[in-house]
């Protein structure tokens, strides 16, 4: 009797063991990253798989951000969606205005029995991928901020300090030019000089609470006097040789900085890792400048980069795995690993404190600039924006900016065109949601 029961228990144990090995739930993660960032993603997934045996996560690169989003959409329409989809900032409205497409990250995590503390996330990250009530829909993942990189030799030669405001820049630009440098270039003006112009100066970007409240009747504030002034100044600096514009391509504007021809370059905090390998001279970084005479300016910038969305229509077991992965991803150790490997900012305060306590920023002061900028005091209009068909609105801006610097149009006319065509696209988007 004893023997048989022992055998029975053994058999039972063996079968549960076998069962647990078989029932490791598979989940997939589609993302839009390549190169060293993709490797970091693979490493994080491996760490997650090694840390537990209930879930098995497979990351798949789907090309660029845009390609990942359209692949995710196509897959959703045919019922083959991945569990986790990475969606970039400009695509946020597309996925967040389709409420049936995603399970809000906050709900997912709470349903799986974990606690969720919004306040644990750093200031600048908290609202961008959240709904109007502040509930996290997307899980902030790779976050970046537009910052100003400084060619330290150039500034030393010219005998000037890095500018904090655009007024400062105007004062030092002649000296930098005199020293034989192009004073400034900037990549992706849409992100640096439009979207984050609004956040950095705490100015409303779009009606309906920057688009958060409703898609109906949302319009963009493209005729703001300060915004127009920013671009009129850029054009003026361009004509005087204080600012060089190399088109909409990111690397065309970054290249001359790497080659030591440019004194100041506005790029992403995430460019830091790459710049360390490509820059031919020592560099440092500081916050994105703002106009000192705009009241209330100097607030934090929007986060760039992308977030992770849990796609709807998945069984509970898989959702539980996705939740446990999100939980894993926000742990300070994983965030610190991601931050230090890629240059993206950590999304939680705990991870920032951990990196700081280990002396990471003493070795790499530039790595801290992005997160410090995101942690600046927030304003009413620096939380985020939610605009439909936004990638196309960005394309319109890119087209008009090229025309401004080619003298084909004036700044005022260009922004009137952007407003007209942008508002038409927003109205069109509102109809797709109807």
């Amino acid at each position, binding site marked *: 009797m004893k023997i048989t029961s022992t055998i029975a228990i053994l058999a039972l144990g063996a079968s549960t063991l076998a069962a647990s090995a078989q029932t490791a739930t598979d989940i997939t993660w589609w993302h839009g990253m390549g190169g060293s960032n993709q490797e970091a993603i693979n490493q994080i997934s491996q760490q997650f798989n090694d840390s537990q045996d209930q879930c098995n996560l497979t990351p798949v690169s789907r090309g660029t951000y845009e390609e990942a989003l359209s692949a995710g959409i196509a897959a959703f329409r045919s019922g083959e969606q991945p569990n986790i989809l990475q969606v970039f900032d400009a695509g946020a409205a597309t996925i967040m205005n389709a409420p049936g497409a995603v399970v809000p990250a906050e709900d997912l995590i709470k349903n799986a029995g974990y606690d969720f503390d919004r306040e644990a996330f750093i200031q600048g990250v908290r609202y961008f991928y959240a709904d109007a009530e502040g509930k996290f829909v997307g899980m902030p993942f790779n976050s970046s901020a537009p910052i100003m990189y400084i060619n330290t030799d150039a500034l030393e030669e010219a005998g000037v300090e890095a500018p904090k405001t655009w007024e400062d820049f105007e004062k030092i630009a002649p000296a930098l030019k005199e020293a034989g440098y192009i004073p400034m270039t900037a990549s992706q003006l849409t992100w640096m000089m439009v979207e984050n112009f609004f956040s950095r100066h705490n100015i409303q970007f779009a009606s309906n609470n920057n688009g958060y409240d409703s898609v109906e009747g949302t319009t963009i504030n493209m005729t703001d006097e300060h915004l127009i002034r920013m671009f009129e100044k850029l054009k003026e600096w361009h004509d005087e040789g204080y600012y060089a514009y*190399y088109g909409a391509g990111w690397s065309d504007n970054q290249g001359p900085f790497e080659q030591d021809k440019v004194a100041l370059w506005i790029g992403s905090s995430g460019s830091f890792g790459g710049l360390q390998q490509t820059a031919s001279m020592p560099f440092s970084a500081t916050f994105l400048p703002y106009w000192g005479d705009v009241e209330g300016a100097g607030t934090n910038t929007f986060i760039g980069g992308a977030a992770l969305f849990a796609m709807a229509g998945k069984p509970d077991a898989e959702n539980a795995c996705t939740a446990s992965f999100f939980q894993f991803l926000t742990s300070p150790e994983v965030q610190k690993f991601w931050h230090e490997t890629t240059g993206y900012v950590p999304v939680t305060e705990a991870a920032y404190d951990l990196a700081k306590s280990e002396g990471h920023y003493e070795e790499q002061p530039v790595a801290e600039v992005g997160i410090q900028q995101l942690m600046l005091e927030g304003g009413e209009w620096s939380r985020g924006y939610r605009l439909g068909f936004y990638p196309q609105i960005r394309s319109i801006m890119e087209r008009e900016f090229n025309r401004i610097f080619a003298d084909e149009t004036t700044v005022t006319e260009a922004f009137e065109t952007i407003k007209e065509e942008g508002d038409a696209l927003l109205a069109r988007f509102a109809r797709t949601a109807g």
Partner: protein
Amino acid sequence: MAELTSPPAAAPRMMARMAARLRGKAADPAKRVQFDSRLLPWLFLAPQLAVIAVFFYWPSIQAVQSSFYLEDPFGFGSTFVGMANYADALTSNSYQRVARFTAIFTVLVTFLSLSLGLLLAVKADAVIRGAATYKTLLISVYAIAPPVAGLIGMMFFDMHIGPFVKLAAWFGWDMRVGLNYFDTAFAMIFVSVWKQIPYNFIFFLSGLQAVPVSVREAAFIDCKNGWTRFRTVVMPLLAPTAFFLLIINITYALFDTFGVIDVMVKDKPANNPITLVYKVYDDGFRGNDIGGSSAQSVILMLVVFALTIVQFRFLEKRIHYG
């Protein structure tokens, strides 16, 4: 080169049969084959028809259908809007601008790649010593995939390090590809033509080699002038090949240059010229505007359809198939 002669030379003959079909005549009654069962021919055709149905008819029908709707990308809400997507596209300034560029681009790329291909073929045909080497060198470019061609072109025309840009600067041309509309258009046409010349070269060369030696010799006795001889004897005999290439080149310029353009505008068209097919992609896949993008692709489909009909109806009549 003999092994190269047969398959390309067969293509114009296929076109002739297609043309005859379009005019409603039986092409070659002598070649008619009798099948025992009425089903058997369909059975043979089935695999090909299935491929066409799955990869062409079905998506086309879907495109036509979604062009009448405004849809949210995830497929939750879709509103019937009738012809609104078509009206939006055709009345938009940016669409008209892209359409104008596409027309100019197609004409220039087709004309330049055909004429340069023909010129090289005529010259290569006349070379006797080292002929194989010349031909191989000229043809080898054809093996380059369009995105790779775009990348190579991009490097040549890079605004910071491109050798062509430096060359242009030497002539006082401050070339800024990616920034200046005209310069980018120039670079795009340059790379697209360069990529297509070898294809035309192969066909023209085999077409030239198919011109019988006896005809050439007879022409040589009648006329001393090489240009007149080419114009009156060789050119008409080459016409079927040229007509075939014309259609292929127009299709190339309209559709297959996508890879070149995508690489050259680096994902951000901004103010740079793009073609209609790139705009379909940009609005549909980057902008997720499925209705608008479908309407544009239907318009493009109709244009190509009309163009092909016109070519067969009017141009093809003047061509004599040997």
